[in-house]
Structures are given as C-alpha cells and as structure tokens.
C-alpha cells in the first residue's frame, strides 16, 4: 500500500482562556493600539447585543440572532478585510457589517423586519444576510469567480456556522474554490451548536477544518475566542487569496453563549455546566484581562468606554425607531428593474387596500 496523500490540521492560539500569553506574540500585538482597538469594538458589539435583546423583549424588534460569543471573529474580519473586498455574511455578522460601514440604525431595521436593512449604499457590494443556511458560501465563490475573471486582487469572505458545513452548498463551494483556486475565505464560526444539534452529531470528523482537505484547499483551526490568533489566521488567508494562491477554510472555535435566537430556549437542550464553562473562555473578558495585565487598559478607561458605547448605541436605536415606514409600493417596485405591465393592477390594488378604508389599512 502506497501513501498517496498526507494531511495535517493545525490549531493556533495565542491567548490562554485566562488571558495569558501562550507563545511569543506577533509583532503587531506587542503594542497596545491594535488590541485596544479590537477590545473597544468587541465591547461595542457585546453591549449592542444586550440592547437588541432588550428591544426584542419589549416588542420593538423581531426575532433576533444574538452575536454573543462571536465578537472576536467579527471584529478581526471587520478590521482586516479591505473596503474593496466583499463580505458574504450570515445572520450572526451584524457587528462585522457595521464595521464595514452599515449604520447601526439600518442594521437594526433588518431585525425590525424591514428590507432597508440590506439596502444601505454603505454596504457597497457586500451581500445581505443569508438566511437559507450555507447558500452564501456559493455566492461568495461566485463573487470570487468574478474577481478572478477580471483579474482583480480582491477577496470574497463568507461566514457560516458549524451546522452549515453539513449542507451540500458549503461543500460544493469548497470544491469549486479548490478546483478553480478562487480568492475566497470560508470562516466557520464553530459555536458548537446548530440550534439544538451539538457539533458531535453534526459531523463525525475530528475537526471541521478538515473539510478543506477533500476540496484541496487550505484548512485550519483557530481559537475563535482569541483575537490574536484570529488576526494571524485571517491575515494569512487574505494574503494567500490576494496573491492568487486560492482559498482557505478557517474553523474558528467559539461558543454560542446565547440562545439560538430570541425564539429559542437553549436550556431545553444544553446543560448549564457547559454554558458556564464556555463563559470562562469567552473572548471579551479574555482580551480585557490580557490588556489589564499589560497595563494597556484600566477601569477608568473601561467605564468611560462603556458610557460612550451606551451613547453610540442609543443613537443607533433612536435612528432605528425614528425611521418612517417604507412606502408599501416597495413591495412591487424592486421586484424587477421595471414593473411588468401584468403587475400594474396588483400594485394599484396594494396601494388602494392600504389607504384609509382599504382592507389592509391598520
């Protein structure tokens, strides 16, 4: 028997669960600026998440998918992706979307059941959230194909969950990315749960990163609660893609600290102990501890920043709550570039019904 192929999957981390250094830091992390910047963004994401859940509980916003536990992933991607790169996100990347320019109020309007949350010009060519699981992986490879055809040095970055790796779309995307050496990065936010289905039931492989092997692309695991490891891994993958060397799958090990969405109750299917243990590994506190230990952040700064963040968020929420309803004719006016004649009558009826006295006037 000949060995015709060998592969290894590596796991990288820099910060221990308790926020101490595990190995020599990369150069950029030996200075405070970048790390403090990451920390600030992560605090913002976390506080915003709390706020949105409060809005949901008080009926001011719809079903919401919390980002709790994925702050490091979003923050690093938001920092390292270039403006001209294209993000093809899933429904847990709103912190990342904001870092790429989407105003908070408009982001909130998406969760408020309003398509304008996808339409801000600030989103440039980024995709809106993908709700049908894993479909975005293929859109990202399509975007990357366009880059490759036009010989542009841009990268498509797509994010999905651990559950998504079981769906054909994800694997078909990896496969074509490998066959065509596309400039695309697949980030798997492995938060250990797909609603109630644990990672162990999702897939029999030891790592999800090894799904890259069957497609002939780079694959690696990284501590997704560790901004430093995330930064290194994403940076390398972007460089690789930008140089025309092809795709990377990064499995970022994290934990879904929240319920799946506000419509879910995770106590039904997972133990408190597991959740508690996960809180001991969470990304924000970990980085805070490290910054404290380096003398790069203190209580005063913390309080000041938390206050500032509150105000930023309040502004965003105010903006959201003050948005006038969108014109109902939007229901038809963006379906086609030009409304087909055959639909004119239905459009008229929609408008008529919504007027005072109409059947849909509320």
């Amino acid at each position: 028997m000949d060995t015709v192929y060998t592969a290894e999957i590596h796991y990288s981390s820099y910060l221990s669960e308790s926020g101490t250094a595990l190995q020599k830091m990369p150069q950029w992390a030996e200075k405070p600026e970048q790390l403090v910047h990451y920390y600030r963004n992560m605090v913002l994401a976390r506080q915003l998440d709390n706020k949105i859940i409060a809005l949901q509980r008080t009926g001011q916003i719809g079903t919401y998918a919390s980002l709790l536990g994925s702050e490091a992933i979003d923050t690093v991607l938001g920092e390292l992706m270039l403006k001209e790169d294209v993000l093809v996100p899933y429904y847990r990347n709103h912190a990342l979307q904001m870092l790429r320019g989407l105003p908070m109020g408009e982001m909130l309007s998406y969760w408020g059941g309003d398509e304008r949350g996808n339409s801000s010009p600030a989103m440039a060519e980024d995709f809106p959230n993908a709700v049908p699981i894993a479909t975005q992986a293929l859109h990202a490879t399509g975007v990357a194909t366009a880059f490759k055809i036009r010989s542009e040095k841009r990268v498509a970055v797509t994010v999905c969950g651990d559950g998504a790796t079981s769906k054909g779309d994800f694997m078909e995307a990896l496969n074509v990315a490998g066959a065509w050496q596309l400039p695309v990065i697949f980030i798997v936010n492995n938060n250990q749960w797909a609603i109630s289905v644990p990672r162990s039931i999702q897939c029999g492989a030891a790592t999800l990163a090894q799904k890259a092997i069957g497609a002939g692309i780079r694959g690696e695991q990284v501590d997704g609660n560790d901004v430093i490891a995330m930064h290194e891994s994403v940076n390398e993958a972007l460089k690789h893609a930008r140089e025309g060397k092809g795709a990377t799958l990064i499995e970022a090990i994290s934990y879904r600290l929240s319920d799946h969405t506000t419509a879910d109750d995770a106590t039904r299917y997972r133990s408190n102990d597991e959740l508690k243990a996960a809180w001991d590994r969470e990304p924000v506190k970990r980085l805070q501890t490290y910054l404290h230990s380096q003398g790069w952040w203190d209580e005063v700064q913390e309080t000041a920043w938390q206050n500032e963040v509150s105000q930023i968020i309040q502004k965003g929420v105010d903006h959201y709550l003050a948005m006038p309803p969108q014109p109902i004719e939007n229901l038809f006016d963006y379906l086609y570039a030009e409304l087909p004649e055959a639909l004119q009558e239905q459009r008229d009826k929609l408008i008529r019904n919504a007027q005072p006295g109409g059947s849909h006037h509320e």
Partner: protein
Amino acid sequence: MSNSITMIEAVNLALQHEMQHDDSVVILGEDVGTNGGVFRATVGLREQFGIKRVLDTPLAETMIAGLSVGMASQGLKPVAEIQFMGFIFPTMEHMIGHAARLRHRTRGRLTCPMVLRVPFGGGIHAPEHHSESTEALFAHIPGLRVVIPSSPARAYGLLLAAIRNPDPVLFMEPKRIYRLNAQPVEDNGKALPLDRCYTLREGSDITLVSWGAMIKETLEAADQLKKRDISCEVIDVVTLNPIDHQTILASVAKTGRCVIIHEAPKSCAVGAEISATIAEQGLLSLQAPVSRVTGYDTVMPYYRMENHYMPNSADIIETVTSTLEFS
C-alpha cells in the same frame, strides 16, 4: 374523554399514536429530537421512543429527503420534518425525481411511504424565508400527495392518513394557526380520508374554496356575510394533489358562484387549477366569473409589511360582494 388541543398538539398526538402502533414509523429532521422541534411538534417523542426512532439529522435538507427515500424503500415509514417551507427547495430533486417515482419506476417493486412535514405561511412575524407558501410547486408533481389541514382534528386525522398512506405525502402545516382555536380531539387512531375536499359550511349563495390558514379568514368572512344574509358554502380543499374537483364542481353547480382564497402568489398557483376546472367543466352553471383572493405576485416581504401581502377576511368579503353583484 378528549381534551381541547391546538393544531400543533394534534400533530404531536398523531405522531405519538402512530409510533406507538407501528414500529416502522421513524421521525427525522433538524432539532426534532432533544429539542422536540422548533415548533414542538415532536416534543416528548425522543424520550418515549428512543434515539433510534427520533433522529436529529445534520443540517442538510437534500439529505433529509434522500435519506427518507432510502429508508422508505426498506419499508420504514419516515416522517421527516423540514423546519420551514422556505428551506424545502433542496428536497425537490429527491421528492420529484425519486419519492414520487419510486413505485412507478420499479413497477411497484420498491415504494416510498414517506411523509415530509413542513410548517408554511406567514403571519407570525418571522424572519425572511420563514413565511412562504409554495404548495403549487408540489401540487404539480404526479405521484406526490399534498395535504394541508386547517384544524386540530383534521391535523390529527389527516396526519394519521398521510403516515399510513403507502405513497409519499407532503404534509404542510399552516403555522399561523398552530396555536389558535383549540378543539377537542379524541386520540382514537382514526384516519381521515385523503384525496377529498371537506365541506366546512353548507351554503347556497356562493362557494368559498380555500385551505390552510386562509380557512380562518374564509370562515370569518362567511360569518360576517351571514349577518348580511349571504349564505356561503365553505370548502377546505385539504388535498391539493390530486384535487377532488367533484366536490367543488357540485357545490358551484348549486351556488353558481365561487371565490377561491389562498395565501400563495396568484399566478400559476393551485387556485388557478381550481378556477380553470370550474370554468372548463362547470361553465354553464356559473352565474358570475370565479374570482381569486390571493397573495400578490411578489416576494413575501419581511414581517413589517407582511400584513399588506396577505389576504384577509375583508378582502374576501369585498370579492364575494362583487361576485354576488355580477350579473
């Protein structure tokens, strides 16, 4: 003695009943096990019947359908859940190309007694892709039954029938009324007939034809019209493929007028088949054109605007009124 239960509880009760009485019934899907399904349709079944009969699958709808075909070919009766109708499309190659054809292709050597359960429709302020009504895509497929209950009792009896049916059934559950209007349902194991329309109200002035959550709006409209002395016959189509046109034609022969109500977009939906058949086979009995009250031919909007999209009882009343005025 029978308790008042909701439709979702009736679904659960039917599953439980059939699993108890038939070892070959196996449940599979995303989150159907420990979690009991995102709508709780399968709650308690894992505890009662064990992990070999209630299977939490990896997240892959194509796989859920394909696996069910394979299981069914072995004489199991898989009852698979697709979490929302918006996620059913990856199952289509297997439902159309295999489930609906296995018996035909093998001249009866292999069969496919599977059920694909799926909640559908809008009105619960759900996220995008959680509110579609795409029954028309399946109703067009020869060999595939499409069944939609509209009350707890019918959900119980029809689901039993679907599971016992030796051929594949798409069982669509109108989730907007999952928890509305509890009613007594006896756990008597009695299946209701498939391939039959159900006449929910008899009437003489006009026939209202509908299914799913729109039955609620239709009945409300009928109630209000009654106050104006308009007598509506209300027909719940229930099985959208194959359709029991005879019941509808007989009703329209009596009333001479018909309004069809569904939530799906209008064009090329099941309402078109019913309207066409009435006019083709009952032209001479029609005293007014058939009308359809339906969703618009547009994308189901995000929840802020969903009420503008969905037909309601006021729309039905308006159309009934103009149909009655026609002469």
